[in-house]
């Protein structure tokens, strides 16, 4: 069972994520958007959306620091384990709380405002609720488990395992001894990743980073216009 979850499942998710995203981009291009409901409701969105999105940006940076960057990097910099965990618990906890509170605001907003609820699809609810599950587990781990049980050193288990996925040599052994709470967080996250191409989450791939560099005015000419 462990081999499935830590050796096969991530690749199933990765395949779904890539294939379905490419399919949607190519064949369902007009459905690729950030489906904003700001036109219907603005006040609660300003709180919920900003809390959630900025929270998730910070949380993403935190995950890069904790999972992608090897522990040896911190050791080389001379950052002690204790210092790292204090920083991770404080920063990660804050980001997690922002995400969770933002999601709760967004969920209540969606359910209670008829202008939003009549248009909300299963995918919309699934996205918010599943994000809440993932973020709730993560925040609980960071703020409660880490401070009451043990400051769990995921940088020597989950981190190397996650990086080993990219070498196509998944180090399944590393994950078997990880606490159940952390295992659930990882699995639920992977389910979320698989859902990306089928939900509004797809808009995360469209961050318009090139905007500041492009010319303000855009002209489009037909092919061959100048040659005629």
């Amino acid at each position, binding site marked *: 069972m462990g081999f499935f979850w830590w050796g096969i499942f991530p690749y199933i998710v990765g395949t779904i994520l890539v294939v379905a995203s490419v399919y949607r981009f190519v064949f*369902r*291009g*007009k*459905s*690729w*958007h*950030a*489906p*904003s*409901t*700001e*036109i*219907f*409701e*603005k006040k609660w*969105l*300003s709180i919920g*959306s*900003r809390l*959630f*999105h*900025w929270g998730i940006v910070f949380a993403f940076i935190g995950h890069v620091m904790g999972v992608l960057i090897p522990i040896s990097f911190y050791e080389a910099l001379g950052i002690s384990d204790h210092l790292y965990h204090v920083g991770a618990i404080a920063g990660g906890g804050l980001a997690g709380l922002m995400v969770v509170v933002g999601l709760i605001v967004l969920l209540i907003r969606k359910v209670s405002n*008829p*202008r939003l609820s*009549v*248009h*909300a*699809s299963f995918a919309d609810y699934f996205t918010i609720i599943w994000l809440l599950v993932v973020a709730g587990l993560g925040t609980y781990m960071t703020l409660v488990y880490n401070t009451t049980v043990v400051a769990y050193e995921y940088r020597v288990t989950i981190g190397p395992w996650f990086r080993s996925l990219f070498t196509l040599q998944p180090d399944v052994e590393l994950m078997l001894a990880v606490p159940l709470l952390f295992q659930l967080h990882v699995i639920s996250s992977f389910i979320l990743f698989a859902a990306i191409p089928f939900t509004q989450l797809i*808009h995360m791939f*469209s*961050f*318009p*980073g*090139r*905007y*500041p560099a*492009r010319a*303000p*005015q*855009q*002209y*489009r*000419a*037909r*092919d*061959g*216009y*100048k*040659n*005629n």
Partner: protein
Amino acid sequence: MRIKAQVAMVMHLDKCIGCHTCSVTCKNTWTNRPGMEYVWYNNVETRPGPGYPKEWENTDRYKGGWTLRNGQLHLRAGGPISKLANIFYNPNMATIDDFYEPWTYDYQHLQNAPKKESLPVARPISMITGKYIDKPEWGSNWDDDLAGGSEIVPLDPNVQKLQEHIALEYEKTFMMYLPRICEHCLNPSCVASCPSGALYKRDEDGIVLVDQEACRGWRFCMNGCPYHKVYYNWNTHKAEKCNFCYPRTEAGLPTVCSETCVGRIRYIGVVLYDADRVKEAASVEDPKDLYEAQLSVFLDPNDPEVIEKAREAGINESWITSAQESPIYKMAMKWKIALPLHPEYRTLPMVWYVPPLSPIMNHITNEQDLSMDGYIPAVDDMRIPMEYLASLLTADDTTVIRRVLLKMAAMRVHMRAKTVGGMDEMKTSKLLKEADTTVEELEDMARLLGVAKYNERFVIPTGRREMDNNLHYKQGACSIEDLAPAEGMVTYPYERSDLG
């Protein structure tokens, strides 16, 4: 010099009767589908009034258009960096209530209601939630013909600006109609506001379109356009806007709004302009200079040098000929009687308005022997305050409005003298000098404004079919054929057939 061609429109407000035919035919053509019920690419506003959406001219609130800081043009709502920082929530965007909650009526009930003592009524149903609305409270022309009066009129930002007290007593009120479509600006702030680069100006005719494949629904165009003419389709979650009926103009036909205009107030034609001078023209210091600066970017289509350069730029003979016969060039650039709407937004709008004459406030006592020169002071005393027109059309410069009104009055007086007599010679009149015009020009104006037929009002070269075998679809942009019925229509609150 970088010559480009632009299709443009003039609306002669003197002839607008406010019938909304343009709005209705446009609606039926383009926005009669889920997610777009609240959208009117073309709408007709009664001014003074808040317009559609409410107070769209309130740039402090919506932050549309450009502003000049240290001689540099900046988007009023903030540049790319600040937009990316605000991408999770657009603080300046209008909501549906600033437009209105679209509704239909429960017509089925008229047929299905059980037998009762009282007659069944068709209750209004929201086209957003599918639920009954007890009382619709606003619509795109709710304030038509000053309805709402003294409660509604002060919402007009132009009225708020006027120094003098605008009397709303019955005998002193004024009103005019202002039909509005997308301005297809030379310096469009919606294009510059789009993080995805989905909005663009077509190189060959300057029509501003939204690429539906590229739009991601970030919504900065909605309030980035100071005219509020880019709309959010809540069903497809993408922006849509007036496309100048390009499938029609490419076939040489006028837009639907123009074709169906009852008062024949609309004119369409091609103008040539120098794209290299646009930025400079939009960046002049004093907003009152913007009108003249905008005029300076257009090129004389009869100038041999311009014609040669246009050919080099790939503009073909039929487009050059059309530019030479363009009613827009005559009215806006040659006679200077058509003015841009709110030039102070610095977008160089390309829908031009001939300001309306209005009744003279004070009685002219000696009407029988009124001389032509008597009309000079009369222009200053018309019912629509010159300051109001200036606030709409010339960035508060009343001298331009006065000159146009004098010209329009001179045209009327001259044509009246010519056809029914009883006036002194126009040639000797001070009115001619004051209006800075000639008898020949007045007669040309009278012809184009009064009697011009279809082919003179609409001088539209056909699309460049030689450039593209698949003219409509090559750019994948703006065709609504696969949006209507739209993807995501499952979210529509009820079946279309329920609407009866």
